[in-house]
């Protein structure tokens, strides 16, 4: 198990390094460099940078060096000082911009993932056990609607319904009265309430796919001899259902941890735009559109790292949950 973990972490560090290289080249891709953008900006303001200022700036960002030293300066800045570079559009360090938006994003993403799992798990088990029943067809239908209706449409519908019939404020993270208020229990509750709707919207899309996977996997497991064997030793139906086939069908859930993180973060771009939520999605979109390359690159790097970390976590959880994975990698198996 330890060997397995070491190997997984080792590979993921390598992957992260490769991702950082790609991100760096994305930052470098637009013609010119950071200082030339700065000069252009200054000219647009009617100011002018002296040749000396330009030189100082170039030196500070190592722009006169070959690409590998530039990369080293960039990556070592990130690792040692958390310095992700500078966002021109926001006129602040990129890391500040990101940190301002990241917590809410993670909260939203986490909530959406949690909802996805709860819904998909329950409906997946139900539809697998009651295969080809009316209930199965109904939930399958609902699942496909969730899969096929675009998120922004759902967002608009939810906004309308919530506003029209429940008199809830939608859009933004807080209701108007709490926007400027200090943190309190009421404010936190308000935040959760406001997050619930976007989380539900994002969850619907992911749920449909996961329901199908769970249903298919569990249907296969339900006919396995070990289920019949458990029945033949006198175990109760609901106990054996949860203990054996459901347990074995859990693997796809665990695997989703890895890919759910980036898909949730990028998936919420449109929903967040529609609901005007201050999450990372719209900021990333803006950064890409405005060629705010340090900010964009930092975002991509963080997303990449999160994906890798998510994958490692799901691998480790999988190994913890599934003895076949665990034991085979430790060499204990025959």
């Amino acid at each position, binding site marked *: 198990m330890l*060997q397995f973990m*070491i*190997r997984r972490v*080792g590979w993921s560090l390598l992957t992260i390094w490769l991702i950082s290289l790609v991100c760096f080249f994305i930052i470098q891709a637009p013609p010119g460099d950071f200082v030339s953008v700065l000069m252009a900006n200054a000219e647009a303001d009617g100011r002018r940078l002296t040749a000396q200022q330009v030189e100082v700036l170039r030196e500070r960002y190592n722009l006169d060096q070959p690409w590998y030293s530039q990369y080293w300066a960039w990556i070592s800045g990130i690792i040692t000082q958390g310095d992700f570079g500078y966002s021109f559009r926001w006129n602040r360090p990129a890391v500040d911009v990101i940190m301002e938006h990241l917590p809410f994003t993670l909260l939203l993403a986490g909530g959406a993932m949690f909802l996805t799992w709860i819904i998909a798990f329950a409906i997946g088990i139900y539809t697998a056990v009651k295969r080809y029943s009316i209930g199965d067809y109904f939930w399958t239908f609902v699942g496909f609607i969730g899969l096929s209706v675009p998120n922004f449409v759902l967002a608009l519908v939810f906004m309308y319904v919530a506003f029209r019939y429940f008199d809830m404020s939608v859009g933004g993270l807080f209701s108007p009265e709490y926007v400027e208020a200090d943190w309190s229990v009421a404010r936190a509750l308000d935040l959760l309430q406001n997050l619930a709707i976007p989380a539900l919207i994002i969850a619907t899309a992911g749920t449909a796919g996961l329901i199908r996977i769970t249903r298919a996997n569990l249907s296969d497991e339900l*006919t*396995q*001899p*070990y289920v*019949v*064997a*458990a*029945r*033949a*030793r*006198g*175990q*109760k*139906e609901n106990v054996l259902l949860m*203990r*054996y086939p459901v*347990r*074995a069908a859990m693997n796809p859930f665990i695997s989703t941890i890895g890919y759910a993180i980036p898909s949730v973060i990028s998936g919420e771009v449109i929903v967040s735009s529609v609901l005007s939520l201050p999450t990372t999605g719209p900021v990333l979109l803006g950064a890409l559109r405005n060629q705010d390359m340090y900010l964009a690159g930092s975002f991509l790097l963080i997303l990449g790292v999160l994906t890798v970390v998510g994958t490692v976590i799901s691998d480790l959880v999988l190994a913890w*949950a*599934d*003895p*076949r994975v665990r*034991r085979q990698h430790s*060499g*204990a*198996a*025959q």
Partner: protein
Amino acid sequence: MNDSLGVKVGATAAGRGGPLTSGSRSNAEHSGGPGQGASGISPPEGPALMTTTPQHGVAAPTPLLQIQNLTVQFPTEERLVTAVAGADLTILENQVHCLVGESGSGKSQTARAALALLDPPGRVAGGQMLFHQSDGQVLDLAGLKPRGKRMRHIRGGEIGMIFQEPARSLSPMHTVGFQIAEAMRLHRGLNKQESWDAAVEALRAVRIPRAELRAKSYPFELSGGMRQRAMIAIALAGQPRLLIADEPTTALDVTTQAQILDLLREIQAERDMAILFITHDLGVVAEMADEVSVMRRGEIVERKPVHDLFAAPQHPYTKMLLEATPKLRVGRSSQTEDQPADPGLVTAAAPTGPQAEQPLVEVRDLTRSFTLKSGALGLRRSQLHAVDGVDLDIYAGETLGLVGESGCGKSTLAKCLLRVEKPTGGSIIQRLTKAPTGDVAAVPERHLGEYRQQMRMVFQDPFASLNPRMTVRDILLEPVRGDGPVADEWLVELLDLVGLEAEHLERYPHAFSGGQRQRIGIARAIATDPQVLVADEAVSALDVSVRAQVLDLMSQLQAERGLSYLFISHDMSTVEHLSDRVAVMYLGRLVETAPTAELFTRPMHPYTETLLSAVPIADPVRQRARARIEISGELPDPTQKPSGCPFRSRCRFAQEICATETPRLRQTAEGRQAACHFAEEIRLTGILR
């Protein structure tokens, strides 16, 4: 009648008691003696018991389960499939009742119906299943709710069940101990710790060494035999009075099968339990049964005590089954001519014998190794020598049988012969092609075309080895595609050779039965007019009656076309039936080669003797009179073979020299070779006499 049988049974079980049975010696000793192991599953004290106490010494044959006019149906959208059509079956207390039949006869469904374990949409459409409980009450199992409390008590508490595939009948996500302990909790009202202890005891009672450790193992960490033992432990946890064993040894090797059958026999005697033993193998029936019911197309066609059934079968179907089963006959003559049974007098064998001419294929010191990665970053490597220095000759017109347990390297050897696998070392010299190819083991792929036309393969699985999207015509044309257009007459002729007809040409494989598919596979193999056919378990997946037909076809083709066969099988009786010579393989090495009759009469390698001893003969009189050579232990991990002789860890003759020196395969008698230091000194027993 029943009495005398009982005595016989006891004697056999005790007589076979080798190292395995030390925990259980005999019935008399069992209750007070060293039977600590068994006490773990003896009735526990305490009032909260729903389970029954086995009644010792019941003499009168009282019925335990009476199945009357049982009908099981599977309604599908197209039609109603009747799997069991009015079957009657009575199982007496303390009796081993064998239910025999070919696949699809409804034998498993009958047993499953009793426990309401039919796969949906199956249902019991009629009949009664009367179970006589220990308190004298009679319960109709057909009338119980499948999910109700009473049925759950019956399952495991009154009737235990073990299954065909132990690997798939245990949850891979849970330890074996957990699954046994679950059954203990359900039927004995034990708490968590007690049930775990009981599970360890139960593993000990099914003779699993180091039970504490094994309880914590996951099913995939155990061998097939150990998994089936664990399944038996689960089935016995609730002290059932009836054990349903549904083909429990079909997926196991013959030596493991022998061990499991022994175990079931011993346990049955210890516990005064009845067994409903479902099998298709008449050898197993001869070994196990007190009473036999023969099932065909959902009906019981004949029911008799085992000796009567084999001696005087009444129903034509029973007769057919018995005839189709290869007999290991006493003083059997070889395929072509009568031979004296005494090995001392046997001279040069058949006209195609070893001395007659040069072999078609000469395999020398052939090795095929695989590198297994393990450890951090896959840096630690170990070598698996699947084929480890094999010398083998195939002569024109002969059938060479290749036997050995699963994992011994038989199939890898076959693949090397066809160069599907590239050998790691050694040479294959062939005299099949007109133009010499040199060493087949080493020549480049592009020079193998003609060789592969001369050496063809028939595969084990008649379903997976035919492309479902090709018609029979396409399948037969594929091997000769390079030879230009082919006339329809030729194809029809080819089909006719294997007993199929012209109208079959345009059909797809799914339209054929297993036996017919294997005929297509054979037709495909002989389409190039080869000299050698490699048949890797070619008839293992077929039912007895179909198997006999396919074997007849193979013999006939051999006579007509002078084919040579390399017939690979784990089934000794089929090999004996078909082969002129037999090679025995163990852990990647040949341990013995000999003419068939001699090998089966007087083996010269202890492993051969063990294999032969484990083969159940389809004759209850002979089977029960035999002395079984106990094989100790399990097949070693092929990556960690014992030093010296690979078999020494399980050999009863092993000496010091066996650990230090690897015995070479050497000439031990005329036409015979064995890889044992003591081949000449030890006197081994065969099947034939």
